[in-house]
């Protein structure tokens, strides 16, 4: 009997798929299970083809899973689309009043669970989304889940205000629950429930938002853009509670310039966008670098190029971020790898930004930003290091905002502080901030101030931990990835181990500055290397070669909009190992 379950709900946009999926995820998490859920949707508000897949188990689950155990199909199209694809499936739940599953459409072994929805919902007024709740009730019964938990989730979803709606939903779910009990009983699953453990179910974006406020983010600006918008929604909803100024600006150019203004004035400031919005921000990224203004920028990648696949995942923006803005200037790029890491990486980003007075860019992607995961370990007391602040204007001379120092970091002052007046300028300037570009560009001074700024990067690199290998050092194969592929690579290592193939995993978390020496050493010992990336050209592999010279011959590249599935990586890794 299986100790984890994978459920897919498929329908059209507007059918309530996200909320039904989220309810199931919460029911599972409140029952002590770990979950991982992924929503595959389209760039359309109503209609189209959408599905959400939740995997739940009593151990940590690393992805939405390969094999669907239960399909809840909400319309005939989705029955037609998904049913033939399936195998090894426990069953399909569907509204038998509205849909038919023709003979021969499903593979042998797939069980059908027709639900007479109309009959079961009649007394509650039969609105269309009730079919979802019926199916949810039926499913929880077959998985032997506790109906009290179902009730609690329904209550929290609809709130106190709407007693009638709450009652109707509970009634309908109960109907499904009882119907399944009487018709089909328990399915072949043995999930270990633990009702004392209630893990929060979080998306990467929620983790980023929370990590930000935990680290003292006080200013958040954004312009709506999938898949970054939910950070804005969370921030706006919690603005007063958390004391954060949240500004939806007129465009992404204003967004980053506002955040830079806020950073200059002393706020921990963040903004977020996706590739197209980041493109508009690039000019100001250099402004932050030049004026040495701390700021945190999140860019959550989606399918490109251009508008591309706005609701699909991809990791195609590495060089856009690396190359952002003209000239050389210090910057840090971090790619968090899990929902939990989104939280901590964001908090860390604020410390780095202020300690080194530079822009820190966090690269996420749709998959990482939007998928839901249960989280075990959130510590709200994150370290806060605001970096060097000047506490007096020095010798009564003009304040040296950009004083030459060993580390390149110069003590800051904030507007309002006495005796430390200065102008931060995007033109090249001397230690006091006075332009050298307008009257006489002293060549030596220019070199000195460039070196001062760039020197910061040496110290950043020293501070950032070098990447390490997960898994045995002399494994048969080394899997390399960045960002959201972490989970699937970690799962692959474990799956391969079951087949006696040893694999290790190198995750590049800090894309810039790059630990070239450390990575060179690690890779020198690898027997075989497989680069796994969600883009066409192998962007990380390029970066690695640029910084280490190592050419990675084997790449598993995916750019069809969907995330990697564990079996895709496992298969490719096995091929490589067995082929020599």
């Amino acid at each position, binding site marked *: 009997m299986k100790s984890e379950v994978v459920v897919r709900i498929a329908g059209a946009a507007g059918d309530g798929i996200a909320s039904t999926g989220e309810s199931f995820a919460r029911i599972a998490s409140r029952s002590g299970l770990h979950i991982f859920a992924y929503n595959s949707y389209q760039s359309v508000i109503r209609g189209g083809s959408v599905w959400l897949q939740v995997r739940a188990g009593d151990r940590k689950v690393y992805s939405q899973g390969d094999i669907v155990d239960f399909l809840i199909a909400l319309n005939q199209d989705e029955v037609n689309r998904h049913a033939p694809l399936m195998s090894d499936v426990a069953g399909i739940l569907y509204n038998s009043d509205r849909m038919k599953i023709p003979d021969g459409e499903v593979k042998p072994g797939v069980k059908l669970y027709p639900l007479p929805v109309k009959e079961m919902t009649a007394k509650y007024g039969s609105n269309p989304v009730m079919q979802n709740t019926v199916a949810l009730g039926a499913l929880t019964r077959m998985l032997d889940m506790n109906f009290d938990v179902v009730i609690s989730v329904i209550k929290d979803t609809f709130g106190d205000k709407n007693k009638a709606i709450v009652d109707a939903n509970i009634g309908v779910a109960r109907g499904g629950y009882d119907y399944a009990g009487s018709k089909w009983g328990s399915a072949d699953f043995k999930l270990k429930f633990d009702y004392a453990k209630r893990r929060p179910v979080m998306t990467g974006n929620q983790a980023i938002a929370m990590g930000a406020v935990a680290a003292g983010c006080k200013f958040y600006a954004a312009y709506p853009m999938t898949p970054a918008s939910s950070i804005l929604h969370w921030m706006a909803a919690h603005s007063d509670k958390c004391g954060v*100024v949240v500004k939806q600006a007129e465009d992404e150019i204003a967004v980053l*310039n506002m955040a830079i203004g806020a*950073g200059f004035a002393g706020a921990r400031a963040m903004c977020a966008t996706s590739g197209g919005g980041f493109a508009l921000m690039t000019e100001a990224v250099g402004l932050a670098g030049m004026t040495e203004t701390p700021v945190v920028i999140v860019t959550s990648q989606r399918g490109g190029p251009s508008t591309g696949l706005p609701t699909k995942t991809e990791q195609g923006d590495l060089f856009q971020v690396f190359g952002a803005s003209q000239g050389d200037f210090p910057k840090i790029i971090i790619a968090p790898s899990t929902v939990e890491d989104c939280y901590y990486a964001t908090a860390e980003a604020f410390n780095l930004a202020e300690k080194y007075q530079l822009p820190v860019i966090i690269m996420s992607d749709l998959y990482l930003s939007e998928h839901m995961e249960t989280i075990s370990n959130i510590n709200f007391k994150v370290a806060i290091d605001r970096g060097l602040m000047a506490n007096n204007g020095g010798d009564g001379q003009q304040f040296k905002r950009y004083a030459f120092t060993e580390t390149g970091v110069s003590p800051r002052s904030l507007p309002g*502080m006495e005796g430390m007046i200065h102008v931060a300028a995007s033109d090249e300037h001397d230690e006091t901030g*006075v332009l050298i570009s307008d009257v006489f560009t002293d060549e030596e001074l220019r070199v000195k101030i460039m070196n001062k700024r760039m020197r910061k990067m040496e110290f950043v690199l020293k501070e950032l931990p070098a990447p390490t290998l997960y898994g045995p050092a002399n494994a048969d194969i080394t899997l390399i990835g960045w960002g959201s592929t972490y989970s699937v690579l970690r799962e692959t290592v474990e799956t391969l181990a079951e087949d006696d193939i040893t694999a290790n995993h190198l995750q590049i978390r800090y894309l810039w500055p790059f630990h070239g020496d450390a990575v060179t050493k690690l890779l020198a010992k690898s027997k075989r290397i497989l680069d796994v990336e969600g883009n066409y050209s192998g962007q990380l592999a390029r970066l690695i070669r640029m910084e280490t010279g190592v050419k990675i011959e084997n790449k598993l590249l995916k750019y069809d909009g969907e995330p990697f599935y564990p079996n895709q990586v496992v298969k490719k890794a096995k091929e490589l190992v067995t082929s020599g």
Partner: protein
Amino acid sequence: MADLTLYKSETKATWCPGCGDFAVLRGVQTALATLEINPKDVVVVSGIGCSSNLPGFIKSYGFHGIHGRALPVASGVKLTNPDLKVMVTGGDGDGYGIGLGHFVHSMRRNLDINYIVMNNQIYGLTTGQASPTTEKTQRTKSTPKGVIEVPINPISLALVSGATFVARAFSGDADHLVKMVELGLKHKGFSLVDVLSPCVTYNKHNTYQWFRERVYKLEDNGHNPKNLDEAIKKSFEWDVKIPIGVFFETERPTYEEEEPGLKKGPIVSQTLGIDEELGKELLRELE
């Protein structure tokens, strides 16, 4: 009135001799001194252009950012620390050209920011191309056969976009200029002072002389600055007679007064992070 030298920077202004911007610099300094605003509490933000060099020439905090983006930077400063006096000083290209979107959106927002535009109807720093306020038919480096667009009218734009204080000044009338800047600074909410500030090097059409023959003061003319319709009508005057003075002033809550995130005071002085209790509450929402 505070000592004017308090507002003098160590750096000498680098504008061409005779440039209208000198008068604006002196005007801003004088207005700040008159209102006795401590230089440490002033932030002057600008973009790029001859005029945008102003923050380097005044003693106060300053942010000399990128072309056209001064208003967003200033908005970030103001929202972080509403106790600061935030001014934006820049050019017509910077503010009415590339920065036009920010200009209009800032006005509907009504942050308490004083925006002073040195409108010389030309791109000065890039050596004399047409700007959005260059007049139709004028020949410039980029329009050797004459401009074929009608110019932006910043006053009318401001009036229909929710600006709560809209004035025009002229670099050739220093006292009046000081008064306009002072009124702008005293006004609570977004104030625009569009200054006709001749570029003696690249704009040989809109010269001091040209303006002197045309400008007249609205206040000498019985204009009622509470009347929006009248103000709009006045804003269309040009060529024959050019009004300077306050076109319009009104009161409306500022953005920062209504911003939920500022209810606990300036964010710059709040303690950072979230306490255990709030943290738990935030997590509970997600369980």
